[in-house]
């Protein structure tokens, strides 16, 4: 048997006996992340679904001056509360989301046909109030439009003359596309769980090996260092691949429990897409294993390696975050960037879009090339005397 296969087989088998590795690779990542994701999605979906049906709660100051306005608001589903005190303070302290202040002169000014100033107190930094604010403004505008229409009619003018342009919004996003907007985080969860699967294997095979004093006898053997390093990287990659497969499988099952259909959404995550995701992610597992082996080989102890690799796990988020900030879409020019290209490909698969062969090839090719370069760097590191620490 070639030496690297011996190293590979030993590192893979040995780690099945380590509780920490098994827990993090086979349980925490593959079960924890889909669970967390499903719960988060359910909360997000429930919130976006229920808010239009909830009655709009509106505190009113001076409501006694405008019984007609109050009647209009109530008839459109607003729940009105009489309010006394300083509106600005109450809104700032989050005691009230919205406070409407009606001036005492409203009856007199309306009778004269003069404009009336009402004040709507809100906190624009409070994101949870955003939807309510929009609804309150729409209701007040509706009341104003109605009054104006009556005034025009009373003077023999058709109210429709004021509507030169009517805007009708047509939402063209498909149900699947809308789900993907929410499911955009899914690819990151998969990348993360994949890397977690190999963390402890990579540490054990490098910093762990040195710390327990088994590295020096290993290096006295007539075996090329490249064989040792290749076996170690492949072992970490194999664990990552197992973790990846379990995670994608768990997502495939757990997304069925999301009531996406209720909201007119759908996902394409069936067995075929799941297999495609695993296949597209394999080069990334190799890259992750090479990176972790390289980084952990620099560290002096198991603990130090743990600290560093916790940071390394976050590295793939960086390109994805940039893409989200700049609203980048999967373009050929970006497909050579590892983690980002996998993110785009998974995204396309979930949207049910066809994958271009060029995109797949550049993702697989570039990621594998990066993995080989990092692997070569790790071999160089192991050829140095200082590797003994």
């Amino acid at each position, binding site marked *: 048997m070639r030496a690297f296969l*011996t190293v590979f087989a*030993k590192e893979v088998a*040995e*780690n099945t006996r380590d509780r920490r590795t098994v827990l993090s690779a086979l349980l925490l990542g593959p079960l924890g992340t889909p669970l967390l994701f499903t719960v988060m999605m359910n909360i997000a979906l429930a919130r976006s679904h229920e808010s239009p049906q909830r009655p709009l709660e509106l505190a009113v100051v001076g409501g006694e001056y405008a019984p007609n306005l109050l009647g209009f608001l109530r008839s459109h589903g607003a729940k009105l509360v009489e309010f006394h005190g300083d509106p600005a303070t109450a809104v700032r302290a989050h005691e009230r989301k919205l406070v409407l202040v009606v001036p005492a002169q409203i009856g007199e000014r309306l009778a004269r046909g003069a404009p009336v100033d009402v004040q709507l107190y809100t906190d624009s930094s409070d994101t949870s109030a955003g939807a309510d604010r929009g609804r309150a403004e729409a209701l007040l505008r509706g009341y104003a439009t109605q009054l104006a229409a009556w005034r025009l009619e009373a003077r023999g003018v058709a109210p429709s003359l004021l509507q030169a342009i009517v805007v009708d919004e047509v939402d063209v996003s498909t149900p699947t596309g809308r789900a993907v907007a929410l499911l955009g985080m899914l690819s990151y969860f998969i990348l993360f769980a994949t890397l977690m699967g190999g963390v402890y294997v990579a540490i054990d095979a490098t910093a762990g090996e040195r710390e327990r004093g088994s590295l*020096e*006898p290993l*290096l*006295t053997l*007539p075996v090329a260092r490249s064989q040792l390093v290749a076996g170690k990287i492949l072992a970490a990659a194999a664990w990552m691949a197992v973790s990846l497969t379990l995670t994608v499988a768990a997502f495939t099952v757990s997304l069925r429990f999301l009531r996406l259909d209720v909201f007119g959404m759908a996902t394409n995550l069936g067995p075929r897409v799941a297999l495609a995701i695993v296949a597209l992610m394999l080069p990334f597992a190799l890259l992750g294993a090479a990176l972790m082996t390289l980084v952990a080989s620099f560290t002096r102890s198991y603990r130090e390696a743990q600290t560093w690799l916790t940071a390394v796990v976050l590295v793939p988020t960086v390109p994805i975050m940039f893409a989200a900030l700049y609203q980048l879409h999967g373009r050929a020019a970006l497909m050579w960037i590892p983690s980002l290209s996998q993110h785009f490909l998974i995204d396309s698969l979930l949207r049910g879009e066809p994958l271009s062969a060029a995109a797949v090839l550049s993702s697989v090719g570039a990621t594998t090339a990066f993995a080989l370069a990092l692997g070569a760097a790790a071999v160089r590191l192991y050829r140095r005397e200082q590797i003994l620490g």
Partner: protein
Amino acid sequence: MIVLESLRKRFGEVEAVREVSLAAADGRITGLLGPNGAGKSTTLRMLYGVLRPDAGRVLIDGIDGAVDGVAARARLGAMPHAAGIYPHLTARENVAYYGRLLGLGGAALARRIDALVELLEMQEFAGRRAKGFSQGQRVKVALARALVHEPRNLVLDEPSNGLDVLATRSLRELLVRLRNEGHTILFSSHVMQEVAALCDDIVIIARGQVVAHGTPAELMRRVPGGSLEDAFVQALGGEAPA
């Protein structure tokens, strides 16, 4: 047969090994004796190929380690100072891993491990995972590992460190047995009595240099009173009692 020719090794400002030459012959036990920090471990690390000498040569059965390191090291069984074993593997699996890396396998490897288990009296713990092994048990596993490919030459760095009396004695018996089979054995120690009890040849090093070498009898003849301890102290540059 192990020959070291004028080895030198420097780490930054520190000259760990200035000039070490020695020859360890077949069928003899050679002891590398010296105080802590004398350069014993550095010398042995150059011998088994994890450090590159700044100057000088390492010859194992005539093969230059710098020219053909793989062939040279294939003839060598090494037990470094830190000879850690894998806690999640059994004693047998630890030995088998090295056997496979050295190209052994199948029934031949299993038979070889059986023989080593018997030779080193490991029957009691051979099938147990190494986590929680005593120092004596760990040294036996490390020794079995170093011997798995039946090397002609055996190099051990402070092998008796941390062993109790019984374990030390069985280690000695083993080394004698291997010597009688014709193996070359080179081991380092800072304990004079141990070297005196076991070695056919002694090389004393201090401050990175060989300061004396010879059979125990030759070394004792050089000092009045004729004790090996006096010879050792004198070789290190101290005053031998008159």
